[in-house]
């Protein structure tokens, strides 16, 4: 496509004529649009490259183990036998634990910032929660090792064992490090994501819904429950799933506190291992083609799961905020 042709050939001022002359020509326009098109194409090429590399390099392991790869429990580099169940289990349990902790907290924060908080506090509050999202993962891990884990070991875990030990979820020696620590640090990391999406979808609930509920005599909480949360349900679920996507792929902080032992234990005090952290720990030392291929297959599985989870989340958020400007409500 070319822009409208220059109409003023004579009588244009010097500056404009310079603009026109220095850049006249269909050739430059065409070149420009090809370069720009190339840049956009790169985005697609990157995705294709990721898929192709992951699929082709995990073939060896896929042919050796097939679906059993995800049901096998022993991860044994010495005998070249690989099963990823312990990692899949660790990834799912740590992420679900993170969601259980993060959902009430982040929805609470979202509701507070949009519905309850005085106007002057709203800006600083959203800014600070977003600040949480800017902290690098390795710093979360550092903090978790030296601050969170000792607290868990000496206060939280003994308390949980005493009060809820009968459930079987909180048994065994309180190391501090383990599934519980991983879940908590993941929760801290995904709270900003879920709460900012919650804020976004609550903000597009039409104001007259709130007014109608209040006019019918609802208390503030009833108004929030009936008029606001019910309208924004799908979007909040979308935000939660987006947080889940982040939790599934989170690597460094989890690797630093989960204990890195490929075992499946019922107790949350026990150490575990996730798909992302086995990649972080073993990839650069993987000797042997099958070992490397098995690790890449874990990467492929992680990639596919996060893509599905993210696509689902985007769809849900979009179905609520569709077309509406995010700051529809002042």
């Amino acid at each position, binding site marked *: 496509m070319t822009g409208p042709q220059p109409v003023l050939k004579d009588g244009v001022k010097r500056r404009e004529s310079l603009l026109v002359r220095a850049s006249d020509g269909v050739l430059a326009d065409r070149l420009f649009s090809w370069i720009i098109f190339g840049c956009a194409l790169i985005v697609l090429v990157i995705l294709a490259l990721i898929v192709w590399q992951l699929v082709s390099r995990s073939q060896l392991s896929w042919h050796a183990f097939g679906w059993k790869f995800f049901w096998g429990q022993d991860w044994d580099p010495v005998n070249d036998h690989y099963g990823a169940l312990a990692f899949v289990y660790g990834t799912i349990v740590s992420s679900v634990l993170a969601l259980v902790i993060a959902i009430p907290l*982040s929805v609470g924060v979202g509701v507070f910032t949009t519905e309850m908080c005085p106007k002057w506090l709203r800006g600083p509050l959203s800014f600070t929660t977003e600040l949480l999202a800017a902290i690098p993962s390795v710093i979360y891990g550092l903090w978790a090792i030296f601050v969170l884990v000792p607290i868990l070991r000496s206060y939280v875990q003994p308390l949980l064992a005493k009060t809820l030990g009968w459930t079987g979820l909180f048994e065994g020696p309180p190391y501090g490090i383990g599934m519980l620590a991983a879940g908590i640090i993941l929760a801290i990391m995904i709270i900003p994501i879920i709460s900012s999406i919650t804020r976004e979808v609550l903000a597009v609930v039409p104001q007259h819904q709130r007014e109608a509920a209040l006019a019918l005599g609802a208390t503030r909480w009833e108004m929030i429950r009936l008029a606001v949360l019910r309208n924004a349900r799908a979007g909040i679920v979308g935000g939660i799933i987006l947080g889940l996507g982040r939790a599934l792929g989170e690597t460094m902080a989890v690797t630093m506190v989960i204990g890195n032992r490929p075992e499946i234990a019922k107790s949350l005090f026990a150490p575990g291992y996730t798909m992302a952290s086995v990649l972080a720990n073993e990839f650069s030392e993987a000797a042997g083609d099958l070992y490397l291929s098995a690790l890449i297959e874990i990467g492929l599985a992680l990639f596919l799961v996060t893509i599905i989870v*993210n696509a689902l989340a985007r769809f849900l958020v979009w179905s609520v905020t569709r077309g509406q400007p995010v700051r529809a409500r002042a």
Partner: protein
Amino acid sequence: MPDSKAAPPQKLEISLWRKLTNHLATAFAVSTVVIVLAPLVAIFAYLVIKGVGSLNLAFLTQTPKPPGEIGGGMANAIAGSVLILTIGSLLGVPLGIGAGIYLAEFGQNRFGNAVRFVSDVLNGVPSIVIGIVAYAIVVLRQKHFSALAGGTALAIMMIPTITRTTEEMLLLVPNTLREAAYGLGVPRWRTTLSIVLRTATSGVITGVMLAFARVAGETAPLLFTAFGNQFWNWRLDQPTAALPLQIFTYAISPYDDWHRQAWAGALVLIILIVSAVAAVRYVVRRGTLGGVA
């Protein structure tokens, strides 16, 4: 607002239960805010207290000592991070901005929608997976862990973010500006670069800085691309130290002195990220390029 004076007096008789749940809900919401902000405050407090105490000249000027020996610093890791981030930005920023321009100016078609969807997808790909891909396409070919591989991984992470923010910012530029330029006979490429992009400069740069801040602290994609190094290295095809990698290695080590240095490194990392973002914003605001956004 409903006129409360017009309501009959019975309206005020809200049952105790409803009053109670209302207050409970408020209390719950307030307490969630406190619980969420507590770790934030704690993290920053520890960073400052532990970090400042361990920060000294040696930390900023020396390379690491062998395990167990006290002293040494992370100078090579700081330099390595700068090197890797420069490579990442040189690769990622032009491509991202280019793709963003395409989407905003030419992208109202099926191909544009595909690019949009794919960049959103790429945004959600775990960084460790990007690391595997950079390993496969750069490290395996060069037969070396290298700064180049690390930079490639970071570039792949920057591109989708920059693409989407650039598009958003360019769409904010009013169409009348484009029409005015066409009306003066300015060709399309010139309009896009000197009118549209220029007007949106500050917004585009903010997007770039967001992407930069996000990858500056990334560790996972560097583990098996840049790999880390205990010594100085300026060659692009050799293993290179990076600040986040060094923090990770030191944090999980058994040595107290290394723990101390990990805190110092974390503080330096945060300061580097924040000051890079602040500096660019300052320059943009002060310069002649202040735009619409």
